[in-house]
């Protein structure tokens, strides 16, 4: 009897202890869980709720309107335009980031030049990445000014007989902002791909060379397949982040002229903080979130495939 009592007492004590031990990891995590709940989960729930109301923040008693805001947006021409612009801007950026990043990484990985020379070039190549979007925006506004140095070079070389309005022309503005974004974003690829290149075992190349493979074949059958997982990860992360780009557009064209550079992010910002249509802005913001999460899902799946 006594022994039995002692046993239950002990096991009770043990289960309490177990609960306590089970809580330890959460103690370490509690500040993070608290912060991320308030800063990520709660706001996403809020923005979804806002998107189903007639007009929050401005109205004292907002009314539930279902998916009316979404319907309105999806039939709105400006929204279509912003979506198309965002996709063009993002897709072109990702493609050219990859081309430039891979090209520079291959150049920097050459065995033909001494280490020191390569290190100096690497620092120069990374520079655009060190600059914040605000600074990149005004830097290019200076260079691309109608009276700026790039127009001077074009005039002098005879490529054009008149000054080009890079950022305020209806035809050019979207291409120009895309170019600026390409310039500022390739180092991210370059650095990662350079690390990837240096991780490919030299024996692979030696063996293939002995078998008589030429430079192009080495690239096609060894370099590219070895880099593929990194390239896929980079492209998907870049796709998500470029889709969110706001600062660069806001500081160069503000979405103009005549909305030719309007992106989903700038449109959403204007809906909220210029037109005070917070509910419509919330619907737009939620659509951007959904698009991003779809790409993120591919990213996670790809990561898992690499891990296996």
């Amino acid at each position: 009897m006594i022994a039995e009592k002692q046993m239950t007492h002990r096991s009770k004590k043990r289960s309490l202890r177990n609960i306590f031990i089970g809580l330890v990891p959460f103690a370490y995590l509690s500040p993070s869980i608290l912060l991320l709940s308030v800063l990520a989960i709660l706001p996403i729930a809020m923005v979804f709720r806002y998107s189903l109301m007639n007009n929050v923040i401005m109205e004292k008693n907002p009314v539930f309107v279902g998916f009316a805001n979404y319907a309105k947006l999806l039939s709105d021409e400006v929204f279509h335009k912003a979506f198309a612009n965002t996709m063009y801007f993002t897709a072109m950026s990702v493609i050219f980031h990859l081309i430039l990043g891979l090209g520079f990484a291959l150049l920097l990985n050459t065995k033909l030049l001494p280490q020191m020379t390569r290190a100096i070039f690497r620092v120069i190549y990374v520079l655009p990445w060190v600059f914040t979007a605000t600074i990149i925006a005004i830097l290019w506004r200076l260079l691309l000014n109608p009276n700026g140095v790039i127009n001077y070079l074009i005039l002098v070389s005879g490529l054009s007989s008149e000054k080009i309005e890079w950022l305020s022309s209806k035809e050019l503005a979207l291409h120009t902002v895309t170019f600026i974004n390409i310039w500022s974003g390739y180092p991210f690829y370059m650095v990662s791909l350079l690390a990837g290149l240096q991780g490919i075992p030299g024996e692979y190349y030696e063996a293939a060379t002995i078998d008589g493979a030429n430079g192009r074949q080495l690239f096609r059958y060894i370099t590219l397949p070895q880099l593929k997982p990194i390239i896929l990860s980079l492209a998907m992360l870049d796709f998500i982040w470029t889709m969110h780009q706001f600062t660069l557009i806001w500081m160069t064209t503000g979405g103009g002229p005549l909305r030719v550079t309007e992106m989903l992010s700038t449109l959403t910002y204007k809906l909220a903080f210029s037109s005070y249509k917070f509910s419509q802005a919330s619907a737009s913001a939620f659509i951007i979130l959904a698009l991003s999460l779809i790409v993120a899902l591919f990213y996670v799946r790809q990561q898992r495939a690499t891990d296996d």
Partner: protein
Amino acid sequence: MTKKASIRTARLLVILGLILGAIFSGFPILWMTASSFKSNMEIFAFPPRLITESFSFNAYKVVLGDPEKRRFFLNSYLVSGLVTVLTLFVGTLAGYSFSRYKFRFKKALNVIIIGVQAVPPITLLIPYFSLIVMLKLYNTYAALVLTYMVFTLSYAIIMMTGYFNTLPRELDEAVLIDGGSRFMALWRVLVPIALPGMVATGIYTFMLAWNEFLFALTLTKTIDMRTVPVGIQMLMGQHSYEWNEMMAMSVLGCLPVLILYLFFQRYFMAGMTAGSVKG
């Protein structure tokens, strides 16, 4: 002979490519720096020249002599510094937990933390605006520090978990056997060893905070609360374009990140690539 010749042409081509690339990436920055030493009259001089007769540090003197602009820098340093310290502290605790314990909802939490990295800032902006106003934090440092942490913290947790995973568990066990607590093991043994990882994470965090624009633009209002990126933008609207001052401010604005980069290049790269290659 032909082999030697072909190696020589290959080397020439590589050098040519490298120089063209350096012009592409370096020239805009060179031009920006050069313009900060010009007088505003000569910014768009025809024909343009890299260095003009008016070469001077005047623009820098104006920027640094203006208390309003100095305040932008003070604000940026303060906010970025606070974000970095808090992120590292909270992120290290969480990373330790993820690395050393098994617990329920671990996988779900992990998915949320990675997922946060894909959430668009613009999506969070509208609810942040109402939350910050509700909490009476509008136009304060706290508003910026708190909201910046959503992205820096999730990044830091991923990074620190990765670093702790590379450290052998025997290290913690040695401390436990000596009678120390788990927390001691973390604080006295793991943190000093994980310092390179913390530096990498800290630098990247500082950079994210230093460069942030959207939240700073929307969640502050008065000029004395503005950070450098927003300050530069205001400079652009305010005057009739004092280009040389804007360039001087841009040079000063990217100095901290550039210095961090040059000094901690290796850490910096590690921080940057770890997040992307192994998410």
